[in-house]
């Protein structure tokens, strides 16, 4: 008699389960999850970086939709509407701060995620396409950063966008056309805001969602990459934990921590801190000269600084063109690394690609450092 209530609960649970199972075959999924394991080793912490990036993206979607309720694109309204959000709307400052903070952290964790995957050679067979989709996601994330930067239509945004689109304009053959398409004319104007807005809230989110789904399906199908050293380990020495529920619980705990850190940062530094900041500043004035210090966001700083250091001409080609060429080639090698790195395909470390990774990392760090200190 005493056990009756729990019995009914159990049956009702299984009834719901049955109902779903008959329609969607969920027991196969539950079974699959039950068998999935995650390797446990000294670098297990790397497995959380992708998840944190995903969480920050979700925050971006939610806060972005909220900002959309008040933001009005256009040369006469953009700046005013952002000002309205941060000064009049209840918690408007918080939503903007969260959106900006999680944007910056998302890019940071995407980079961390990428470099840890790179240096553990986790891109090797069978994860070539997972890597490729990840590189695509990072490119889209940078596109989000670039297009979102202009939207408040302040001085800094205006000039950063002029220089950024100017870079596209320096590409041979298609440059001029590309610049006009990006700017919606020959100059950065209200038309440019319209385009960047469309990109930021419709085109990029659509592409990102598709690519993200692909990326996550790949990751689910392939499971977590095992470290290279495990090749030679006897099975008895390999440790695993269950994906469900053990790893998932940990993942959720990390998300909770991320949420708290994010909230703390947004409340204590609503305008950002140090080089990572987004003051509303003064409204963009196309006739005014740029402010003495113009800076892109920190994740574009290395490219910005490298272009600054290049002489006007390198071997008969213009400096900026040389820089763009260099970045294009570097980026291409980076994206195609799983196909180029023959050694990792047969589960061997490859010195060459470690070295390449360190060169890229050192280049980014040194240029970023110079960009902030050399002023």
């Amino acid at each position, binding site marked *: 008699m005493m056990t009756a209530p729990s019995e009914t609960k159990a049956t009702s649970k299984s009834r719901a389960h049955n109902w779903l199972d008959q329609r969607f075959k969920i027991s196969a999924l539950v079974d699959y999850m039950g068998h999935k394991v995650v390797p446990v080793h000294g670098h297990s912490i790397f497995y959380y970086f992708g998840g944190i990036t995903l969480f920050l993206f979700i925050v971006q979607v939610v806060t972005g939709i909220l900002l959309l309720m008040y933001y009005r694109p256009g040369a006469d309204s953009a700046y005013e509407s952002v000002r309205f959000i941060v000064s009049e709307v209840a918690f408007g400052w918080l939503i903007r701060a969260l959106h900006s903070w999680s944007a910056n952290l998302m890019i940071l964790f995407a980079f961390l995620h990428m470099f840890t995957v790179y240096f553990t050679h986790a891109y090797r067979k069978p994860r070539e396409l997972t890597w490729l989709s990840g590189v695509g996601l990072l490119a889209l994330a940078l596109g989000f950063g670039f297009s979102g930067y202009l939207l408040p239509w302040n001085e800094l945004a205006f000039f950063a966008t002029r220089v950024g689109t100017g870079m596209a304009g320096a590409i041979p053959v298609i440059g001029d056309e590309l610049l006009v398409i990006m700017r919606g004319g020959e*100059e950065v104007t209200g038309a440019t805001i319209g385009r960047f807005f469309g990109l930021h809230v419709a085109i990029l989110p659509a592409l990102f969602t598709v690519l993200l789904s692909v990326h996550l399906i790949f990751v689910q199908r392939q499971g977590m990459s095992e470290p290279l050293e495990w090749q030679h380990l006897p099975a008895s020495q390999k440790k695993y934990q269950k994906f469900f529920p053990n790893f998932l619980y940990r993942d959720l705990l990390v998300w909770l921590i991320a949420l708290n850190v994010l909230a703390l940062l947004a409340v204590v530094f609503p305008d950002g801190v140090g080089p990572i900041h987004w003051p509303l500043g003064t409204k963009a004035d*196309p006739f005014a000269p740029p402010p003495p210090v113009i800076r892109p966001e920190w994740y574009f700083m290395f490219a910005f600084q490298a272009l600054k250091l290049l002489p006007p*001409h390198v071997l008969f080609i213009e400096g900026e063109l040389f820089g763009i060429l260099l970045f294009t080639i570097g980026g291409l090698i980076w994206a195609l690394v799983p196909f180029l790195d023959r050694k990792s395909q047969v589960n061997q470390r490859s010195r060459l690609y470690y070295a390449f990774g360190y060169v890229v990392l050192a280049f980014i760090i040194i240029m970023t450092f110079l960009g902030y200190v050399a002023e």
Partner: protein
Amino acid sequence: MNDAKPTRRSFLNYVLGGGVLATLGSVVYPAFRFIVPPPSGEANVSQLKLPFKRSDIEADPQRARTFKFGRTLGIIVASDAGELKAMAATCTHLDCTVQHRPDLGIIWCACHNGRYDLDGKNISGPPPRPLERYVVNEVGEDIFVSREGA
């Protein structure tokens, strides 16, 4: 009869493939043309009367004013010798707006520390080309700026 079959099949394939391509093209082409904006007006302005006077330029702390010249920006600078020099204000590097630095006696681009002399010649930093020079004519109080050769 035997070799007629593959020919017919490949013919159909061409027709089908061509049809698919044509369909795609007719969808993509208008969409692409749509995102290229139509040219905005007053592209070929060759002469302009500036909406301010010499005294306005000299009174400016930077001893310079920017103005809209056709679709682009121009800058007019009063040199120490009292000469007026006008040129395009768009940096030849990556399109920032240049400014006059009377303290350094140069035209300066803040974006990547590009430097030009007052004749618009690039002297240091990344800019690869000089700024386009404009001709300045003063008629009484009025200042006229025109493109070279116009």
